[in-house]
């Protein structure tokens, strides 16, 4: 992967930034240039909630390339407190502990490595909230 391709998403992945339509107020993740609700082109950066709950989840046992060494790993569909949904790996818990409705929060983690000399990619994963 080229460095710019990774670098241009950094802000959005590291800080969980999406878009909010200035016209109709709809929020989106990932970011977009045209609102899919009202087709306005006036969208601004929007900071997502970093906490939410698990709506659905799975365990990936046959992973794609560059994810082999992490398998098996859990991936959840999470509804954030602001209502947006996000797909993310679930970490710091065993598969048996995962339950629908569980509270989770974003955490900064390594995502994958491109061989031994390529880019090491970081980004968000979600872990259980300790109340």
């Amino acid at each position, binding site marked *: 992967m080229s460095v710019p391709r990774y670098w241009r*998403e950094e802000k959005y992945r590291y800080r969980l930034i999406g878009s909010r339509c200035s016209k109709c107020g709809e929020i*989106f*993740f*990932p970011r977009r240039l045209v609102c*899919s609700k009202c087709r306005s082109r006036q969208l601004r950066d929007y900071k997502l909630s970093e906490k939410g709950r698990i*709506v*659905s*989840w*799975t*365990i*990936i*046992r*046959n*992973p*794609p*390339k560059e*994810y*082999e060494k*992490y398998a098996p*790993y859990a*991936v959840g*569909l999470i509804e954030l407190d602001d209502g*947006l*949904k*996000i*797909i*993310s*790996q679930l970490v710091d818990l065993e*598969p048996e502990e995962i339950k*629908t409705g569980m509270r989770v929060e974003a955490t900064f983690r390594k*995502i*994958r490595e491109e061989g031994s000399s390529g880019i090491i*990619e970081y*980004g968000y994963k979600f872990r259980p909230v300790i109340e």
Partner: protein
Amino acid sequence: MRRVAVAGIGLTPISEHWDKSLVDLAVESSCRAIDDSGSLNFDTLYVANVGSAFIQRQQNLGSMISDALGIKGINSLSIEASSASGGFAFNEAVRAVASGVSDSVLVIGVEKMSDALPEEVASTLAMSEDQEYIAYTGITNFGLNALIHRFYMECYGVTASDIAMFAVRCHEHAEGCNHAQYPFKISVDRVLTSPMESDPIHALECSGIGDGAAAVILKPFEGKDREVEVLATATSTDIFHLTQRRDITTLNAVCSAAEKAFRTAGISRKEVDLLELHDDSTIMGVLSLEDLGFAEKGKGSTLVVSGVTSRTGELPTNTFGGLKARGNPIGATGIYQISELVMQLRGEAGKCQIENARVGLAENLGGVGSSCSVAILRRL
């Protein structure tokens, strides 16, 4: 608009064809379709394929395959719409003939998956999703299906066994099918005790990895003996990210493609005699029954469990085994579905033949339901 007919079909068996290349498979299926139709000349060739750029590092299939068939000087290109490539290519071919700009179109669906390692296949399939925010999380296509599958079970109180029956019925139908990859029966217990592919989806609920090619020839409808008329084709899309859909258990692209196709065909759902659906895993087959309008939301698996979708039921579905048992050579799958409808409607389905087949519907999905094609075919 002109009436359009399928004038010929040709299939290769779906298998791991170690001794055959992508082009070999494309040529083999095309020659069978040419022999079936008796038509040698085409002005347009569409190739439906998903993985060649990544798996074989081969592009420009349009020119490559038309030359391999000895055809020169025609409009030839590939069409990609994820695993709905076959259905979308068919749709384009029908439009070309209906509009009068083409008089004879050859559509070839071809996929050669066994040239890749399993993790490369998973990566190829995940290319249908946003690389930056979905595939990036390490989720696979079956993983996305699994998110829907679990949510659907909890939402509608449907059991794992009810959904698994979709795979069982597919395998019942594949028995005796010459081109099927897995032409044998399996029990629901065997499905539910198979290893997890992506929880809660079991390995035996998923389509496998296979190579195959299917070809169809489209011409203006003339009312000849073995012609099958294309009553309607339609395609549609949905919100690309599963995360942004209001209800993840509804495939909106299926609803709207079906709506358009039925409107064009001018027939009701009751007039449909058989279905070929896109069950890349069992839940997608169940959702397809619902979103095409054949079952209420949450009740798709009831039709399967009760036998309505069986060969002798009221609405035989996946009559040669569907993606699960016939096989799912991604870009070719949609063309297999069309060819299978033609075989049923002509009465040439052999051991898989259903009775009184007059109208058939094929549904082909791409991504996690973000692209959908629907075709309705009729025998006179």
